[in-house]
């Protein structure tokens, strides 16, 4: 879907994290957790390519969806210039979202930084009886949406790199501590590649399946230009899959993580 939609809300969540709520029946009614949209941040040349942003939350009654993004460069900075009521050019929902298997009674979502955002709708939609969220941020000031995650999970563990909030250290350490005691049916990762790589190693050790949501620089966002390559296993060999179409969510064991 390529649509010009209306912004319903712009909210600053912290120093450099913002929420945009967009009204779009077409997207809200079709999107599933883990999918993304490809957004035009300026009408002209100033951020020429679209920017991929995950869908963080969907309100299927209100026909809106939320994006939460961190300002990183030109495009995300321009996005901050939008106001409620403005029109925005969105392509989506795109890609393959998370798998929601009703047989999985206990799931764990593990997110780091901007990777936490797409896990929110997953928690909202997943039918599991027990949902654990393990979220990591660099520091206390960057923690956002904690109340929402609390609301949609049964257990919420927080970590910061510097120990300024929650436990000091990595989410993968928290995960491992948990797996010593518990055996969830499924783990979902979204965050820095290094975290996901380590995460997949850990859950594999315990024989637990997992999914990871990958990031890659994109062109078209729809699978036509082949720039968003991600190394995935293919029999004995490997091949490049494409994050925008085959992903962003992949089975954890599929992905060949590199240094």
């Amino acid at each position, binding site marked *: 879907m390529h649509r010009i939609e209306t912004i319903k809300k712009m909210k600053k969540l912290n120093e450099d994290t913002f929420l945009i709520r967009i009204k779009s029946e077409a997207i809200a009614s079709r999107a599933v957790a883990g999918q993304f949209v490809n957004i035009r941040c300026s009408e002209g*040349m100033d951020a*020429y*390519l679209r920017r991929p942003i995950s869908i963080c939350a969907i309100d299927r009654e209100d026909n809106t969806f939320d994006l939460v993004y961190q300002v990183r460069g030109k495009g995300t900075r321009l996005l901050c210039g939008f106001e409620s009521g403005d029109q925005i050019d969105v392509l989506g929902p795109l890609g393959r979202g998370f798998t929601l298997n009703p047989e999985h009674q206990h799931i764990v979502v593990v997110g780091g930084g901007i990777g936490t955002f797409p896990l929110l709708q997953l928690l909202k939609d997943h039918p599991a009886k027990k949902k654990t969220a393990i979220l990591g941020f660099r520091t206390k000031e960057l923690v956002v949406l904690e109340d929402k995650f609390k609301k949609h999970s049964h257990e919420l563990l927080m970590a910061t790199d510097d120990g300024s909030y929650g436990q000091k250290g990595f989410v993968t350490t928290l995960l491992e501590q948990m797996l010593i005691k518990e055996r969830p049916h499924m783990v979902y990762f979204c965050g820095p590649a290094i975290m996901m790589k380590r995460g997949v190693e850990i859950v594999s050790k315990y024989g637990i399946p997992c999914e990871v949501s990958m990031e890659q620089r*994109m062109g*078209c966002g729809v699978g036509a230009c082949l720039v*968003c390559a991600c*190394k995935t296993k293919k029999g004995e060999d490997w091949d*490049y899959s494409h994050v925008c179409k085959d992903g962003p969510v992949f089975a954890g064991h599929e992905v060949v993580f590199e240094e």
Partner: protein
Amino acid sequence: MSLQKDLSVNVAGLKLKNPVIAASGAFGFGREYSEYFDLNRLGGIAVKGLTLLPRKGNPPPRIAETPAGILNSVGLQNPGVHAFIEKEIPFIRQFDTAIIANASGNTVEDYESMVEILSAADIDAIELNLSCPNVKEGCMSFGSTAQGVSQVVSRVKPRAKKPLIVKLTPNVTDIAEIAKAAEDAGADAVSLINTLLGMAIDAHTRKPILANVTGGLSGPAVKPIALRMVYQVSQAVKIPIIGMGGISNGIDAVEFLLAGASAVMIGTAGFVNPMAWVETVEGIEAYMEEQGVKNVTELIGGLMV
């Protein structure tokens, strides 16, 4: 709109209902964008660059944004010409649009085989890619000298049973000379420009943004260079030209037609605006309406210098 307009063009035997073609590499095999608009509206589709055997392409990141443009270093990832013929042609053939097979090789023999195989396939034209800057062997190394172009084209031409379009690289001192070499060696048409070799650096990490270090520049940034090259080539050869490089709308397309192109291709602009291809067709029509141009061919080479 009131004027009765004819947008069809004939490029060396390749009949197009309108002069707008999706550029190779930006449109996959058409499946993805078929969800966004009706492929019947396109003059043609140049499919992703094909090679004899499947290719994995280069490691990511494969794209970098630059001022009014992009760099890509896909490196001809494709399933191979046989998979294309088996799995992709039947899909595209559902639509009434020309299929242009973009073919690359490492050796002259590769090009010969590709042309033979494609000549037997249900396609409308072959675009010989002598200009991909993102692969180590073949391709651009043939395309960057008149001799290399001449060698490949003269060897493949006898095997070509479809219109043979030779795609030229802009990374040369004198593109007119290269186009002339293609013409003399038997090319039915030339298409230009492929991407300009470029590079992007992340000052903070002190590393190139592309894993492949360099990549090919495309998009609006290159339009002035592409227009100049199309114009120069149009002064040097008699065969038709397919122009491209930064075209985003009907007015851009008209500029290329005026400079001497018989048709245009659009790649990068489609990433930003998936309706760019269709809107370009509409934009050409609107221009014709406004200027009272009945037949789009009246515009070709119409620049007043």
